[in-house]
């Protein structure tokens, strides 16, 4: 056991957790933010993607301990109060989600991708989402959403 402190959606969280606690379990179980999901156990599906110091990371694939002192943003921290982030709004307008389970990871991946590449092409979006699996949408509307989100974000 050991104490871990990190900033989660702008709020300092200090918890005493076992050394082998995964970051995803720290977020979901110890802090109680359940918007970030677990869809696999091999780091493939991307339902658990969060931002760690501005970089998109699969929270199932690192220890909470490794995130000590970092700044984490999860899907719950993306909107500005009641106002959706432009990427969230784009997913809504373009029907980029169905069951919603992969959505938090998709949106977090998309935001980072577009932040790094404002003029992102369809091909780059498809390749960029390679680490996020969706079973509902066939990706068509997710790609449209990311394109629209990029435009809203100033692409």
């Amino acid at each position: 056991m050991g104490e871990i402190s990190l900033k989660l959606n702008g709020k300092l969280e200090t918890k005493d957790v076992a050394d082998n606690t995964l970051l995803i379990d720290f977020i979901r179980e110890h802090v109680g933010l359940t918007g970030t999901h677990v869809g696999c156990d091999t780091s493939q599906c991307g339902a658990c993607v969060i931002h760690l110091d501005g970089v998109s990371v699969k929270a199932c694939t690192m220890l909470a301990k490794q995130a000590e002192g970092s700044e984490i943003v999860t899907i719950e921290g993306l909107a500005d109060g009641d106002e959706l982030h432009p990427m969230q709004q784009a997913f809504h307008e373009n029907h980029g989600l169905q069951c919603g389970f992969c959505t938090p990871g998709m949106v977090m991946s998309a935001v980072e991708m577009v932040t790094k590449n404002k003029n992102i092409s369809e091909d780059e979006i498809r390749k960029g989402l390679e680490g996020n699996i969706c079973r509902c949408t066939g990706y068509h509307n997710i790609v449209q959403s990311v394109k629209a989100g990029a435009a809203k974000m100033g692409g």
Partner: protein
Amino acid sequence: MNEVTKIDGIGSSVRRTEDKKFLTGKGRYTDDINRPGQVQAYFLRSDVAHAEIKSIDTKAAQSAPGVVGVFTGSDIAADKVGGPICGWVVPCRDGSSTKEPPHPLLAQGKVRFVGDAVAVVVAETMEQAKSAAELIDVDYNELTPVVDFVNAEKGTQIHEEVPNNCYFDWELGDESATNKAIESAAKVVKLSVRNNRLVPNAMEPRSALAEYDSLDESYTLYTTSQNPHLTRLVLAAFMFAIPESKLRVIAPDVGGGFGSKIYVYIEEAVCVWASKKIGRPVKWTADRTQAFLTDCHGRDHVNDVQLALDEKNKIIGLRVDTVCNLGAYLSAFSVVVPTILHGTLLSGQYDIPAIYTNVKGMATNTVNVDAYRGAGRPEATYLLERTMETAAKEVGMDPAEFRRINFIPKDAFPYQTQVALQYDIGDYEPHLDKAMEMIDYSNFEKRRAEAAKRGMYRGIGMSSYIEACGLAPSAVVGALGGRVGQWESASVRVNPTGTISVFTGSHSHGQGHATTFAQIVADKLGIPMENVEVIHGDTDKTPFGMGSYGSRSLASGGSAISKAVDKIINKSKKIAAHLLEASEDDIDFKDGKFVVGGTDKEKAFSEIALAAYVPHNYPLETLEPGLEENAFYDPTNFVFPSGTHIAEVEIDPATGVVEVVDWAACDDFGNLVNPMIVEGQVHGGIAQGIGQALLEDAHYDENGQLLTASYMDYCMPRADDLPSFKVGYTNTPCTHNDLGVKGCGEAGAIASPPALINAVIDALSPLGVTDMSMPATSQKVWKAIQESQSVAAE
């Protein structure tokens, strides 16, 4: 409340009202829910496919840190808890019925597949439960596993009750007429196809959280279900013998289903049982490997097809002999999928005077096989549309023209097929024409030639499918062996201010019912959509309902809502007549207002609602106060969506990679309530079909070990595997429901595999390739190219 004239009603692509919670991380899935005092369940699963259990020693596990209980099959047997049941059986050719072996919640005496649950450990944390499970010692006497279902008859018998490992041997159609047609045919086209085994892979793994309340001796179960009322019925009536009122089942937000969350699995039942035994809430959530091992799989057929043609290339007969793999135990709808939902679809869009099919359902030491998006209909469509394409090529006709001359003509509806179904309506040439136009079919050869210059093989393939969805009516379902009704329920409650609460028996796990159903109500009542709330997924709130599967929600559930709203309007007219001092017959209802015909006297819907709940001026002698109506709707027939999908591919001979370069889907779903949502359903269905055709394959080795039990090994379609899709529609409204709607959820998965495989074969046809099995992986395609080139070199 606002009364507005412009509403986002039927036919509008209204943005989904459920989106915001999902986009902000506020969705509430089963694993997100925690109860005070909760403990975790972990299932110890068999690591061998077929064995007798000689002994189980749980002593060390019982005293491991954090453990609050360890249970095995003998504990379940001692409490006389039943197992999952089969919801549909069919008669066999020899006059016997389907063989239904018992399926205990935890293995009793024998394990029958890798993943079969042997014991459950309940502990304070999941980690403690897992560690304790490792201390359980199971001594197995291993038996030869049966994996090859085609030859399962000769294998070791898996169940005492199932001789020759054959659950059923079923037939449909006129065998003698069909054989005569084949004997007298100008040409018989023969084809053997395999429908590969798939794993549904909803992104949310299955999960259950059960809590027992000792004060009123009742249970609450949160679970990942597509149909919470059926779950409650099976658990209460068949497993625990308790009144339904003592069990509340809540299916909160559910992250996809695709069929895999229809059934009651052993895990949720064990959680319910253990919650009372231990006296604390018990939670279980599958990891992905458990999902691969224990979720029901789909498809897994081999089909031998004979298509008889006359000298004018008209079809005169079709015979299909099918063997299918149903796995270790019969799941709820295992039996109906390859029989009723498969055999009855064999006429497709074609006028076929004689059809016969025989289906053998086999037991193997693999996990159960049941419904997966399309359920039987993709298998029927695949064999038929592969055969149609093959036949067209063999007789030297364009595949589109060959289909066209065999289509059921539009003036032949209602059309009685030779395999039990009567299609109420359809018109097939328009969607064929439109799909061809969308993909620029007429200029395809130019594109093929251009690709050839680049060293690429380009091909085009189509599939004209029919789907039967919204199973009904219940009497027919019963006559065909179904043990459930197939109606749907709705309760529409008008609140005093005129807002509406709609309680539906359907369940949304991605389909957007909160939006679509609200559109129907808003449209019919002429009120703003935001005044309509849709409630589903809780047996304490909604009327008994059948849930969502088989593309039934709109046709059955939407129609039930429509009928309940009609009752609301009828009662409202009576109230309005009283308030307006007019005869009920003179009241017209339009745009949310009740008007005395030919006058300017009117009452808004909200005024009627208020009068119903504050009945100071109200016909209490003849009319009850309040404004709430129920409807149970049992459709008079299936609905029959149809369409044509055309795929265009390019194959790189250096790698064998098949790139889907274009896709045109033109579907007839009848009237569309929300075209945006429908289009999303089509996209998702096509993606799953492309996955089946190119990437996905659940593979067991000869020992019954599932080699594809993770996303590292089972190839899910990803964003860069798929193209964008062109989607179009034709419309022949359904004749027997008020909304004129059909179903759209499964169409893409039904239509797409044969279109894509036909395109792959067409691309390789210059090399002499005439067949290709699913999935057409790059390795398989590359080998086919190499082999054809070496044949050419000889």
